[in-house]
């Protein structure tokens, strides 16, 4: 928690300091936690779209309730599966790289070298990663949701489900409210921030030797998964209350 506060304090205090150094770093992190993961997410969204639609078609067909297909797909994917799966996939790629990179940086004494040059390691190393991760998880979740819905409909179409594209889109639009979009934005950004802060903390917070890098990375991964699941539970409660 203290590390999170320090990170946001640094972001607030030094957000405009040295933009020619930190902005390119943010772009690199955004590419690592976003753009470069697009092919993986395309594949995953196709797989998930087919899986969810496959099950939904199977069960809704028995009940004669295929007209709820779009609604179920939207609620399940937008509220739950989309954000959580995206966060876990980003964690497995960019989060792991983050933790290993920073732990190695720390073990090689590069953090001390930054301090000796008057460069704030939190500002230079952590802030771009946390911002990149938050924006990356948000962007990828949107991409992922669109992918799942698109591939889901394609799968339904190929299975001769009597559902027109306009009808499907209407069902999705009716199933979602403005609150869903607001909570989706907050949730995905919080997932990204949690992953960014935890992986950076485990990589940087303690003096490390090279042989301790793997342990720190595993710890970062486990704690990030726990944090994402806990956050997801909080949002489930919020949905239930609202």
């Amino acid at each position, binding site marked *: 928690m203290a590390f999170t506060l320090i990170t946001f304090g640094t972001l607030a205090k030094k957000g405009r300091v*040295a933009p020619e150094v930190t902005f390119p770093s943010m772009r690199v992190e955004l590419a690592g936690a976003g753009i470069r993961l697009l092919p993986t997410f395309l594949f995953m969204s196709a797989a998930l779209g087919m899986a969810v639609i496959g099950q939904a078609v199977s069960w809704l067909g028995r009940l004669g309730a295929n007209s709820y297909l779009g609604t179920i797909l939207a609620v399940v994917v937008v509220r739950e599966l989309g954000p959580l799966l995206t966060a876990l996939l980003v964690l497995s790629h960019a989060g792991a790289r983050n933790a290993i990179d920073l732990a190695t940086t720390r073990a090689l004494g590069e953090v001390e070298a930054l301090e000796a040059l008057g*460069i*704030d390691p939190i500002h230079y190393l952590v802030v771009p990663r946390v911002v990149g991760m938050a924006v990356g998880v948000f962007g990828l979740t949107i991409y992922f949701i669109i992918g799942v819905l698109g591939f889901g409909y394609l799968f339904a179409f190929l299975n001769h489900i009597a559902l027109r594209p306009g009808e499907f889109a209407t069902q999705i639009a009716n199933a979602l409210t403005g609150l869903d979009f607001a909570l989706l934005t907050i949730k995905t950004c919080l997932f990204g921030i949690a992953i960014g802060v935890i992986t950076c903390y485990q990589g940087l917070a303690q003096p490390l030797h090279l042989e301790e890098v793997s342990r720190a990375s595993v710890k970062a991964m486990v704690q990030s998964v726990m944090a994402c699941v806990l956050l997801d539970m909080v949002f489930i409660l919020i949905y239930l209350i609202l």
Partner: protein
Amino acid sequence: MSAAPNQQITPAIEMDAVTVSAREDSRLSVLEDVDWKVMPGEYWVVGGMHNSGKSDLLALAAGLNPPQKGICRLFGALMPGDLGGPERSRVGLVFDGGKPFHRLTIEENIELPLRYHHVAGEDATAERTREILDLTGLSPWAERQPGTIGRSWEKRLGLARALVLRPELLLLDDPLGGLDSRHLSWWMNFLDELSAGHPFLGKHPVTIVVAAHNLQPWRHQKVRLAVLKQKRFEALGPCSDMSPLSDSLVRELLAGESTVAV
């Protein structure tokens, strides 16, 4: 009435009854009761066996570590101060091995502090970087990653990166360790030039403090010596004034035989 202005010169480093803690464990003291004053323009060499606290002393002098006890001042300012404080840019710290940033190229390593601190515009940054690359002989490898150039050149990269901000005080941690004779000769000459006033630094003499476990290269140099022994800091004065045989540790360090921790 006219009062004569006080012309007192502020020491570059001033330590008063300082206890130096280990960088990796701040509860562990490695040196006690250090009283030391380094005046601008002086050239000091601090000798000590491995693990005697040389690196920790330099880290404290650079303002990276707080003293466990006592007072440490850098150019008159209490340390450790603010990370982005003005005193920091007056100090260059060259780590043992250089500690380059491995994700950046050699050129980017040198440019980073200039860009971060907005020291100069785009053209001036590029020019100053080229100049220091040429001075340190790193130009042919400017686009390469530090890991590909060998340890001796990584040490020079550490020096180039520390010098690019044009510091007034240069702290060097074991700069000559593991160097071959050609590199060693280059370093000795370059440090002498810096101490005398190098054109890159506007011909202003730089205050130099070197920590080393082998004092032999400075045996005939006009430098001030100090040794670290049994958690104590002992300033011995100018090398030429000292009888090296007066102390077995100094004798060992001057002979370049030090290997065991004290």
